[in-house]
């Protein structure tokens, strides 16, 4: 008679144990005289027996406690009848699952170990990690200098912004520890590259925001562009970071990245819309101005044309506000 493969697993993520049964009747239980000893206190000392004949396999529950399920069907308690079954099937005793397979059944194809991507390879090189964090620091210093230049000299800026300079290093260190836990490897350079890159794009995006909202004289259009940009970028960054600290597949990492980034941005957008009506304050005047004029074509409107365009905009807006009040 053909032998039977029993895969024993308990709830949770513990490693399953495989057992071959080729001598029947095959007895399973917690007692030491069983053919398969189950370390589960919810399983009876002698819980069940597997028999075989020319028709196939039968199972007999000899349990006094907690019962036996085959598939979704519970075996009658106390009757000790033989019950036919065919493989593959699942038997549940106590909190333990037994997956029963025929010995000749095929196994899943072998998973090919994914080689780390070309991007991660480059990102793990020391010169990229260091130069990116250096670029971040220079950019931070440059933008700080603009804010501080009125009263401070550069040493003061350095001292004041010390914490800002250290942000990527701090993030990379934390993520390295996470990587050590999950992957048993520090991968510090990769983490430093990702953190520096993320921080760099973050501060550049603030500048980009200023430029875009100067260029688009409509704040809503600028907000929308920034939203799309940050949605794509942060989803990608999150996915990359996830891949760097775990063996997650590309698909799952992308899924999580998009899910987290877009949820957060969605909540912020809704918050902005909800917060907006505020009658006691000044309007959000679009007073951002830029030194570089990056408009595609300078305005050639005459003053009367300009006034009539403005009138058109405002009449529309005022009518909307009044209509909103009436509703």
């Amino acid at each position, binding site marked *: 008679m053909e032998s039977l493969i029993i895969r024993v697993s308990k709830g949770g993520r513990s490693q399953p144990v495989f057992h071959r049964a080729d001598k029947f009747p095959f007895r399973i239980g917690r007692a030491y005289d069983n053919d398969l000893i189950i370390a589960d206190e919810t399983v009876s000392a002698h819980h069940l027996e597997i028999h075989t004949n020319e028709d196939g396999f039968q199972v007999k529950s000899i349990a006094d406690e907690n019962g036996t399920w085959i598939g979704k069907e519970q075996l009658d308690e106390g009757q000790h009848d033989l019950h036919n079954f065919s493989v593959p099937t699942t038997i549940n005793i106590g909190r333990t699952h037994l997956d029963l397979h025929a010995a000749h059944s095929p196994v899943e194809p072998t998973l090919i170990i994914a080689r780390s991507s070309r991007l991660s390879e480059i990102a793990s090189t020391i010169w990229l990690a260091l130069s990116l964090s250096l670029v971040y620091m220079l950019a931070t210093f440059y933008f700080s200098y603009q804010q501080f230049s009125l009263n401070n000299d550069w040493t003061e800026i350095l001292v004041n912004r010390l914490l800002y300079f250290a942000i990527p290093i701090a993030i990379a260190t934390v993520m390295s520890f996470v990587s050590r836990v999950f992957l048993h490897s520090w991968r510090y350079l990769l983490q430093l590259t990702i953190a520096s890159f993320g921080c760099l794009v973050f501060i550049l995006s603030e500048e980009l925001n200023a430029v875009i909202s100067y260029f688009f004289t409509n704040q809503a259009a600028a907000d929308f562009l920034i939203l799309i940009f940050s949605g794509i970028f942060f989803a990608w960054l999150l996915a990359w970071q996830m891949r760097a600290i775990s063996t997650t597949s590309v698909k799952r990492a992308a899924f999580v990245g998009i899910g987290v980034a877009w949820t957060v941005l969605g909540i912020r957008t809704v918050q902005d819309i909800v917060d907006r009506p505020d009658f006691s304050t000044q309007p959000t005047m679009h*007073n951002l101005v830029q030194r570089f004029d990056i408009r595609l074509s300078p305005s050639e409107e005459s003053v009367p044309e300009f006034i009539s365009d403005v009138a058109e905009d405002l009449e529309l807006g005022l009518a909307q506000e009044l209509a909103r009040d009436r509703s």
Partner: protein
Amino acid sequence: MSKILIKFIATLGMVLLSNLAGAQDVAEELYSRYESSVYRVEVVTPGVENKASVGTGFVIGRNDILASNYHVISNVVNEPDRYQLEWEGVDGRRGPLRVLAVDVVHDLAILQAEEPMGLPMQIADLPENGVSLFSLGHPLALDLAIVSGTNNGIQESSLYEKILFSGNINPGMSGGPTLDRSGQVVGVNVATSGEAVGYLVPATYLAELLAAARTTDFRPESDLATSISNQLSENQQSLVDEILSNEWRNISLGKLSVPGRVFDRLECWSDNQFEEGTNRYTVNASVCQGQDSIYLSEQLRAGAFSYEFYWLDSEQLSPSAFYQIYQRSSRSRFPSRPGEEDVGNFTCSTRFLFLSGQDFKANICARPYLDYPDLTDFMVLMTLVGHDTEGVIFTMDFSTVSLENGLAVLEKFLGALEWNPS
């Protein structure tokens, strides 16, 4: 020489004393004559002990008609379901009052009692400057008081005509009469700003309001809200007509030539700050502002007008640092703080404008008044762009103006603006 001086001072002192004694006699006489014609006017909530507001009112035109300030009784007009109006005499008698008509622009109201209230006062023209006047009222809601002071004529730099009165008007005296020596009303107490600086509404506006009420035989106006709306509309129209018809004279500010004072009743000043050492940039400001506004309710003021040109340049700052300061330098604000029930949100139009060879970025915003749909709060913020370390910020705030009028004033401003590097 010193003898003559002492003699002169003594004579002067005697003249002053006799004048003062005269003033005291007049005050005594006026007080006793009109004691029973001046009342405390109280806004009360039925069933609540505390008064919402207290002012003064006086009998005018007919023996059951009282005059007071609009701001004393505005709660009753705005929330008639919540508040009631009552008078209280010096003898402690009380009675109800109702609002007949109001003039919000000049802060006046006429009220009617249900019984004869005493001797009506008469209205007279404003005497010459320097003449003694006597103001009656209930300072801080205390007993009736008479305050003597002098007439200084109509204030030139106020948007809405007021007489400057050198006498101590206190809160609570609002709505009380100011009399000349003969006991005729020349003004109505309205505001104070500091020691012995009081403002009166010229009594001629009260005469106009009374004359209008007399034509309907003192029937209460059926729709005060519409009446107020019309008054505000007419007021902004005449203000804008005056601004536009005036001949504007430009002043030079940095590399620009900008309109100076666009009409007489604005207060203008210029401000030059040369920030050396720490700030390393220069500011040239020209600010013009109407000194007063129209009281509508506790949080609402109408008819305010101001504009400002703010020139910045720097020889020491980097362009980036300059622009950081530049875009933070706009300073426009409205005097009124309306709520959701008063106004809609601001709506803005943001555009670039090529003017006098230069690029400007312009924000023009307006919000509608829910009760007066033709009127808006109108704001302008314009900045010169395209220069490394120089720029100008132009702001204009005009409250309760129609959109067309706001834009018309803006258009004239834009027409007058010139790039004029010397």
